[in-house]
């Protein structure tokens, strides 16, 4: 789960990390009032769950409250990489002397948590990794005794920080590691972390993602969820125990198992089609789950045909077939359906579907070819 910049800043502040004070506005009037309250030059920033705001014109400097209102008017409602701007953050303009990057993320190969920093702040870390990998300094937290202050100091010295800035940097890095662990984040990033003209550390912009599997123990985090930023269909799927990801193609996919669902998308592509979604219906594949899957898939107007790919394991093919028939009685599906059934009682299942006038085959490749033909036909 992702949160907005202003929400991430609040989390950082509760850990004692110095952030640039600001407030959120939903209207130009609110923005103007906040700018007046803050005084001086402010920056108006689009609050959306995506990067590239600056390039898209979602970040504007305003020298007066009126300018702030105008900037907010321009940004609110803007579409940035498919995200509509509903809120802007109004924050005091900062006196930036130097910019840094500081981030904490899981290091999968080592099964440890990685703290990364770079003196090339304000640039995406992936970009720095490509253009100047030596500029990134890294330390792994020990899984059992954590991230130690000396590691943070080493990072500061390696980045070439002056001696009197080392302890301040180390304190922020240690606190950011605590944020990652205590809040069950999957990513926390301050970019840029700045030194101001008068030598103070300040987290100017930050980003956080949280482990969905740990949200149950973090009700405060769940409260930060912005439904505007989430795909309604994906949320609806999740509530029903279905994994769903919307894609741009025309062929709806309903599959049991995440790996098989990806492989099914790949097969559609291999046979010349484009998948409209990733959908893992979960273990059971019973009538109500399949009916829910139909509803999710057919909500997408681009879908021109549906491929159901079920490998019967513990769940038998005939049960699945009956489930599909039943689901079709509950949900009106107006596009062609191709079913691929394999594994336990696949033949019985195919007979049941044939009786209902539904094409059912054994081979996944054949099913993919058929569904592409159906979508184009």
């Amino acid at each position, binding site marked *: 789960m992702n949160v907005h910049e202003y929400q991430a800043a609040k989390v950082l502040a509760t850990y004692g990390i110095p952030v640039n004070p600001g407030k959120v506005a939903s209207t130009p009037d609110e923005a103007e009032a906040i700018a007046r309250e803050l005084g001086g030059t402010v920056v108006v920033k689009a609050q959306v769950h995506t990067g590239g705001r600056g390039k898209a014109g979602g970040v504007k400097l305003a020298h007066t409250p009126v300018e702030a209102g105008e900037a907010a008017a321009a940004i609110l409602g803007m579409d940035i990489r498919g995200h509509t701007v509903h809120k802007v953050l109004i924050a005091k303009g900062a006196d930036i002397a130097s910019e840094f990057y500081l981030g904490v993320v*899981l290091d*999968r*190969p080592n*099964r*440890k*948590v990685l703290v990364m920093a770079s003196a090339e702040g304000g640039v995406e*870390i*992936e970009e720095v*990794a490509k253009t100047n990998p030596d500029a990134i300094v890294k330390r792994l937290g020990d*899984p*059992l005794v954590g991230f130690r202050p000396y590691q943070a100091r080493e990072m500061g010295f390696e980045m070439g920080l002056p001696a009197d800035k080392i302890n301040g940097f180390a304190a922020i890095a240690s606190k950011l590691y605590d944020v990652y*662990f205590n809040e*069950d984040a*999957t990513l926390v990033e301050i970019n840029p972390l700045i030194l101001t003209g008068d030598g103070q550390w300040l987290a100017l912009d930050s980003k956080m993602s949280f*482990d*969905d*599997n*740990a949200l*149950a*123990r973090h009700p405060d985090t769940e409260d930060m969820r912005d439904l505007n930023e989430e795909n309604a269909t994906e949320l609806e799927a999740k509530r029903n125990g279905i*994994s769903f*990801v919307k*894609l741009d193609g025309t062929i709806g996919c309903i*599959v*049991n*198992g*995440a*790996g*098989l*669902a*990806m*492989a099914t*998308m*790949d*097969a*559609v*592509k*291999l046979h010349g089609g484009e*998948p409209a979604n*990733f959908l*893992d219906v979960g273990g059971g594949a019973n009538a109500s789950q399949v009916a829910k899957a139909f509803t999710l898939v057919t909500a997408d107007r681009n879908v021109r045909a549906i491929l159901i790919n079920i*490998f*019967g*394991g*513990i769940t038998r093919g005939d049960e699945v077939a009956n489930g599909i028939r039943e689901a079709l009685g509950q949900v009106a599906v107006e596009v062609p359906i191709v079913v691929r059934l*394999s*594994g*336990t009682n696949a033949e019985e299942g195919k007979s049941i579907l044939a009786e209902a006038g539904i094409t059912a085959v054994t*081979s*996944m*490749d054949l099913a993919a070819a058929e569904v592409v033909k159906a979508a184009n036909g």
Partner: protein
Amino acid sequence: MSILVNNDTRLLVQGITGREGSFHTTQMVEYGTNVVAGVTPGRKGQEIAGVPVFDTVQDAVEATQANTSIIYVPARFAPDAIYEAVDSGIELVICITEGVPVNDMVPVYHYVRQQGARLIGPNCPGLITPGQAKVGIMPGFIHKPGKVGLVSRSGTLTYEVVNALSEAGLGQSTAVGIGGDPVIGTSFIDCLALFQEDPDTEAIVMIGEIGGTDEEDAAAFISANVTKPMAGFIAGQTAPPGKRMGHAGAIISGGAGTAAEKMKALEAAGVRVAQSPSQVPGLLQEAMSA
């Protein structure tokens, strides 16, 4: 022969009285797995599918000399269940449970290694040595005893490939589902090393997916250490970046973890990589007769 589980496996089921635990205990017993004990605190004296239930793993191990444990408890109890198994002397722990927070698994991973035990999963289907021991939730009947070792991050996709192998007359020595989470106890490399050493495994199939670099690391290991013929498949060629594809670990992030990179790395390591699961048996046979 085989790897990790076989006729010597004495299986303990943690969470045996739960819905999943009791169902799959019955299935495993029916398959012929030597399920010796179950644990659910407070349920001592009960039986599930003829298997005696104990209050603690310690009691169960003392009474039955269980050496392997499979875990079906809810996610928030899974780390404790793993610690309990390892501390009670269980050598091989299979955690089926899905949805364990990553921050919980980081210390678990390192603790288990430190204690010299082995964890498979979490969020995995388990593993099976056909004809000897099914320790997991896979449909047993699709497997045939044979000489192909299989290792996979996926569940149903594994069954798909196993089924195709069995239909092509390629039985399996052991098929291991290592799980789809970002932090799992046993990696591709661990299993490849075991298969390479297992005299009864003649060829290896590896099923990967997007996310992380475990497949790339495996490719490097294969180049240096694996001499047996191999075929593979990587799911998620059409997956978009930044989106989690069902499995917590299946996500392309920061441009890394794509299927294309993984396929390239495996091919460079001499693995025949299929475009579709159905091609795996053919490619493997090619590799075996090359």
